[in-house]
C-alpha cells in the first residue's frame, strides 16, 4: 500500500429501510454464531501439545482446510481484513450485539458527517448517494472512524443486504 489518498467509494440508498436493517441484523447474528464456533476450533486445534482428542482432531481438519483452501465464503472478508479467527482480533465483529453493530453503521451511512467521510447525491439515480471515506496516509491503512466502521461492515458481509455496492 503506497502513500497517498486511500479511500472506499460506495453507492447505495439515501435511506435504508427497516426490512433491510432486519435482514442485516439476522445475517450478523448468524455470522457471530458461526464465527464463535470457528474461533473455538482454531483455539482447540492450535493449543499447545497439538490436537489429541477427537474434538481437537476435528478442529484441526477445519483449520487445515482453512489454511489450504482459504476461508469459507462467509468468512472470507473477515479473514482478509481481521486475520484468522481469534477472540481478540475478531472482537470488533463479535464484541457487540448485532443490532448495535448494524445500527451504528446505518447511522453513519445516513448522516456521514465524520471528518474522513464525504457524500453527494448520485446524479443519475435519485434516492441513491455516493459515499467516500478514507484519508491521506503515508502508506498505512486509514484509521478514521468511518474506515473502521466500513471494515467491520465489509467483514460482516452486510453491505449487499443494505443495498450498498
Amino acid at each position, binding site marked *: 500500500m503506497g502513500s497517498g489518498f486511500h479511500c472506499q467509494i460506495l453507492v447505495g440508498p439515501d435511506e435504508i429501510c427497516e426490512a433491510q436493517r432486519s435482514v442485516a441484523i439476522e445475517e450478523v447474528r448468524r455470522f457471530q454464531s458461526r464465527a464463535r464456533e470457528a474461533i473455538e476450533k482454531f483455539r482447540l486445534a492450535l493449543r499447545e501439545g497439538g490436537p489429541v482428542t477427537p474434538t481437537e482432531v476435528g478442529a484441526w481438519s477445519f483449520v487445515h482446510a482453512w489454511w489450504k483452501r482459504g476461508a469459507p465464503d462467509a468468512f472470507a472478508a473477515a479473514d482478509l481484513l481481521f486475520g484468522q479467527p481469534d477472540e481478540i482480533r475478531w472482537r470488533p465483529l463479535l464484541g457487540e450485539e448485532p443490532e448495535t453493530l448494524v445500527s451504528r453503521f446505518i447511522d453513519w451511512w445516513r448522516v456521514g458527517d465524520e471528518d474522513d467521510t464525504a457524500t453527494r447525491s448520485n446524479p443519475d439515480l435519485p434516492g441513491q448517494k*455516493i459515499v467516500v471515506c478514507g484519508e491521506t496516509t503515508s502508506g498505512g491503512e486509514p484509521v478514521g472512524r468511518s474506515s473502521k466502521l466500513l471494515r467491520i461492515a465489509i467483514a460482516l458481509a452486510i453491505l449487499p443486504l443494505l443495498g450498498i*455496492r
Partner: protein
Amino acid sequence: MGAELICHICKGPEEISAELRAAAIEEVRRFQELATTALGHFELLGGDGDPDAETEALACEYVRTWRKHGPPELLAAAVEFYGEPDQENWRALVGEAPETLVSRFLGWWRSCSVRDTAARTDPDMPGQKIVVCGETTSGTEPEGEGFGHMKVATATGMLTPLGIR
C-alpha cells in the same frame, strides 16, 4: 481545526469520445475569450498604463457591471476558485491552448493514476465511473494533482460537455 477529508466526487463516462472532447475544447475556447476580455478590463483599471478615455470608460463600465451583478455566468466558477480576474492567478486557465488543457484533463481522467485520486466503475451504470480526488487537510484547500485538474476543469467549464457531473 481537525483534519478533514476535502474532495471532489464526480461521475462521468469511462471513455470520452472525440465529439465530447471537441465540444469541451470549444467550451474552453469560449471561456478563454471571455476571460481574456475580463482580464484586459480589470488589468487596465489596476495598471500603470495610460489608456485613452474611451478605453478606460469601457473598462470602468465593465468592472462596475461586474461588481453590481456579479461575473458573467461562464466565468462564475473561475472567480469562485481563482478570485477576480488577475493575470497571475488566472494563468492556469488562460495560459495554454484549449486543446492542451482538455487533453491534460482527459489524461488524468482516463488513468486516475495520481496520488490524490481514486476511481471505480459505477456499479449501476456500466461505462460510467466515479472519480474521487482530494486529501485530508486541516481545512486548507488540497494541493494534489487530481484536485488541481478538477479545479481547472470546473473553472473553464469543460466538465458539462464532457458529460462529467
